[in-house]
């Protein structure tokens, strides 16, 4: 006889190291604090910006605007197969080299005076260069640190960053087990939100809101034994964190959802993607990246700050291989549309929270046991700001 799996809640005692105190509200709206986060975190942390499948061959490039830094980057696969990041800035007088979002090229040629750069950033040619007082070797495109893990591309604007793998620690090997490491295709949707990046991000690392904000799309998550759909485990890895999502033994599923998910699971099994060791893990990499280990949807979600109270979310659902047949295409379309339906429901309530906090009415906000990941994020943010300011001698 099959026994029904029971839900066991995480124990607050295991989370007490995070503290229990209320959290100052200013961290979520204050412009000065945002500037300190920008300096301490976003200008010197590994930030996820794409996937190697966007750069299939030598000469493939993508442009990425990092609004939080005010920079435009070119991510380029060189002739040697290596992926590099450069500022999209001509070394003559600063003109941006291209406004193309992506493409394939053998050189980047500045529209202004035709300085021309190779895929490795070297200045190859410049008209009338004899009249300058510099060397071509000194005029290569400014390089930005770039590294990959599990096919995901990270850049770091800092001067001499710790290697990405050291930064990710033991999570690097776990990420490599995910389907994203083999992805060749993705579905993507993007939203702008009038809310602080942490308030936005926190929404996606607590399940407390699910039954109120996702009463229909969240139905598969709820049951009498776990009415909030809480996770079964939280783990902490330096500034990063994970949760193990609960498996509802009796999910309520709409008719075509069942068809689509069935086809998605068949496709995943055929591709050898099902049943991986991290299939129920939800990874939160500091500062602003998530990836969910399930095969359908297997999504990443990055929340990029645009200002103290504005952010942009980019959600990608990763797939291995082209659609093998109509059934797989149907399943991928449904899975994308379903995930988008869920994500669409969160935005308005996050913005309402931002308006409330920005009013200055509250000195503090509160986190419960099952908001431990939110509590851990603000702790990691405060630690990073303190460490940076101590090192720079600018503690304020």
């Amino acid at each position: 006889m099959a026994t029904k799996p029971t839900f066991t809640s995480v124990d607050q005692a295991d989370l007490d190291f995070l503290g229990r105190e209320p959290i100052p509200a200013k961290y979520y709206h204050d412009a000065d604090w945002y500037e300190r986060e920008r300096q301490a975190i976003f200008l010197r942390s590994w930030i996820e910006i794409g996937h190697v499948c966007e750069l299939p061959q030598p000469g493939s490039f993508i442009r990425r605007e990092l609004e939080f830094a005010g920079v435009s980057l070119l991510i380029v696969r060189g002739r040697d197969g290596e992926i590099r990041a450069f500022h999209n800035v001509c070394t003559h007088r600063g003109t941006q080299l291209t406004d193309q979002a992506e493409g394939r090229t053998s050189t980047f040629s500045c529209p202004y005076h035709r300085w021309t750069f190779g895929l490795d950033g070297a200045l190859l040619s410049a008209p009338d260069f004899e009249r300058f007082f510099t060397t071509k070797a000194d005029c290569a495109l400014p390089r930005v640190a770039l590294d990959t893990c599990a096919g995901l591309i990270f850049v770091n604007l800092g001067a001499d960053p710790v290697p990405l793998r050291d930064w990710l620690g033991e999570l690097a090997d776990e990420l490599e087990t995910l389907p994203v490491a083999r992805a060749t295709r993705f579905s993507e949707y993007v939203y702008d939100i009038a809310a602080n990046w942490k308030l936005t991000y926190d929404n996606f690392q607590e399940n407390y809101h699910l039954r109120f904000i996702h009463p229909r799309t969240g139905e598969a998550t709820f049951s009498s034994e776990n009415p909030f759909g809480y996770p079964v485990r939280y783990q902490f890895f330096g500034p990063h964190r994970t949760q193990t999502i609960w498996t509802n033994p009796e999910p309520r599923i709409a008719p075509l959802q069942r068809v689509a998910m069935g086809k998605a699971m068949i496709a995943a099994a055929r591709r050898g993607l099902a049943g991986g060791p991290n299939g129920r893990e939800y990874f939160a990499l500091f500062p602003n990246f998530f990836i969910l280990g399930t095969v359908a949807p297997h999504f990443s979600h990055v929340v990029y700050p645009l200002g103290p109270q504005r952010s942009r979310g980019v959600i990608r659902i990763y797939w291995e291989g082209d659609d093998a047949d109509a059934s797989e295409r149907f399943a991928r379309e449904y899975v994308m549309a379903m995930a988008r339906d869920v994500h669409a429901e969160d935005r308005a309530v996050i913005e309402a929270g931002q308006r409330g906090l920005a009013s200055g009415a509250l000195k503090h906000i509160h986190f419960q046991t099952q908001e431990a990941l939110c509590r851990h994020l603000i702790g990691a943010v405060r630690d990073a700001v303190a460490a940076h300011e101590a090192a720079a001698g600018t503690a304020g």
Partner: protein
Amino acid sequence: MTMILPEDFADLEPFVADWTPATSAERAARRSAASATALAAFHDAMAPRLDAALVWLDARPLADLDPAGRNLLGLCLMLAHVALAVETQGQDEPRHALQREVMRITRTPADP
């Protein structure tokens, strides 16, 4: 003479004109623009035919479907969106459509 749909699916022809946009973003917009009555009519006609349509399509390479096959595939993909409106959102669909509008679909494997 070119067929609008494969012969076995000729009964679905009245839906082809309105329910076969070219991209995922256009399908999402089509769902949001439709009335509850139109969504229900398409869902009720198409949902019972989905299995047969996918069996017919799966027997052929996706890349070289003829125009009739492509129309049938388009109806299937449209149903993915409409099913969410009819089976999941129900009464909430008009309000939900407003929330979805800002979630811009930028690419999917189904896009040309």
